[in-house]
């Protein structure tokens, strides 16, 4: 008879449901650990509350995750490779050629171009990470910083160039003078020879550094 079946079904299901919720109620004593995805026991410890009270606590993110870009401008040779490979054109570089080699990066690559402007618009960035792959001096990296939301979208444009206006005009004038001088030498070859400076962009040869490639299983 379905009448008594209904009663027993109601009792059974209610008992089971209440047992289940009570189990969860008491398991709230435990908290899910804030483990990195890289942790070996990431999928253990499913018991307990899952809430991460974000501004007060964070789940650790991988160091090599694809988050905010950072450019170590002192190591940047302004080769423009990153801007060229960027699928969404979020890197904006304004180079000024130097008249001569003005320094070396930390890996020994000669610096021949000044970066008047090195802007990365993270609002446009698609986080593909291609720019960090092509970077010859590995100065452009993705950091583990992911919380950089701003009220104004224009604040998502991060500038890495650290030249002042004065320096920029100075370097520009210097280069123009140099060019003009070269022009006069070209038109008048009999005049005194100046030491040629390689102005080719490809002149800056990076030191070859083998990258560790991830092993495939």
């Amino acid at each position, binding site marked *: 008879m379905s*009448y008594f079946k*209904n*009663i027993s079904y109601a009792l059974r299901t*209610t008992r089971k*449901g*209440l047992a*289940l*919720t*009570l189990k*969860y*109620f008491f*398991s*709230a004593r435990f908290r899910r650990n804030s483990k990195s995805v890289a942790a070996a026991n990431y999928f253990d410890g499913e018991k*307990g*509350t*899952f*809430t991460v*009270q974000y501004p007060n606590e964070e789940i650790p993110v991988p160091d090599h995750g694809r988050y905010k870009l950072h450019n170590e401008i002192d190591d940047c040779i302004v080769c423009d490779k990153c801007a060229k490979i960027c699928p969404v054109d979020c890197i904006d570089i304004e180079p000024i050629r130097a008249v001569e080699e003005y320094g070396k990066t930390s890996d020994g690559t000669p610096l021949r171009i000044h970066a008047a402007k090195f802007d990365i618009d993270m609002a446009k960035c698609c986080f593909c990470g291609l720019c960090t792959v092509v970077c010859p001096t590995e100065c452009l990296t993705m950091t583990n910083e992911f919380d950089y939301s701003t009220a104004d979208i224009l604040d998502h444009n991060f500038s890495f160039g650290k030249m002042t206006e004065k320096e920029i005009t100075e370097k520009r004038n210097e280069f123009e003078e140099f060019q003009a001088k070269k022009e006069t030498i070209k038109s008048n070859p009999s005049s005194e020879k100046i030491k040629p400076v390689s102005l080719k962009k490809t002149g800056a040869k990076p030191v070859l550094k083998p990258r560790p490639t991830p092993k495939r299983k």
Partner: protein
Amino acid sequence: MLTFVFYLFFLLIFVVFAVYAERKTAAFIQNRLGPMEVGPKGILQTIADLLKMLQKEDIKADAVDKLPFLLAPFIVFTAVFAGFSVLPLNAYVAGSSISGGLFLLLAIISLDVLGILMAGWSSNNKYSLYGAMRSVAQIISYEVPIGLSVLCVVLITGTLDLQEMSIQQTGSGFLSWNIISHPVLLIPLVIFFIAALAESNRTPFDLPESESELVAGYHTEYSGFRWGIFMLSEYGMMLLLSIVATIIFFGGWNSPIPNFGSLKLYEWTSGMYWGTFWLLSKSLLLVFVQMWVRWTLPRLRVDQLMSLSWKYLTPLSLLMLFVCGIWKLWLVS
């Protein structure tokens, strides 16, 4: 008079912390943390909410029927709170000494349906009216099983006075509770508990204010303090019915610990303050069970609600009344 003062303040404090407990219970059952920001572990969250609620504008829509609209929350609260007048607090403080106390309590708390209907009808809003209609249908239907299940207890104890009922359960801890000394009362207890959930419009019987269908049911048009009164009455009803269940089934203010030989545990845990403590802690445990049920069971459909009351609980409680009568005859002979 003393119980009135005590229960009024206890009710107000209870509501503040019951709302917090409700949210925490929900959170824990759902693997969340619940309120955490205001005060340590979010304990002051309800107080912050309360302050916000009291500052809200008392909105009266143009089309509402003013007098019933303004009066309804107070009728609901008065009806519920009047029920507290007959409750004893401990062995020495007995509440209103009416010999038909339990009967008065059941009669007077069913008046709250009048306030709910007033609120729903005068709001001039289809959701409110639907909510009120459902509430009336539900509360009137569940009056029958709740009355019959209480009648089972009355039949066995032979009194309607709640203090007298508590005194009968004095003696040897939990062994002298009605539910233990008269095991036939187990089914009336279940019926009483289910019907009490329906009476206080709690999930799974929260059709009158089912958020997913009716916005907020009969109190859709209410805001600020008047809405707060409805909330207070709802939690008041929960507490009231839990205290009644405690008194009629679980020994009221009697200590649950029996004596062990020379260890006079029962006497040590009895007395004025102990009695109040036992009564309230047993009741709050039942309130927790109500919350636990709320976060376990989904809401019933209207026809399921009616069939549960009329096809299952009412016949069963009539049967149990018969069984309890036989039990009483067997006890007497």
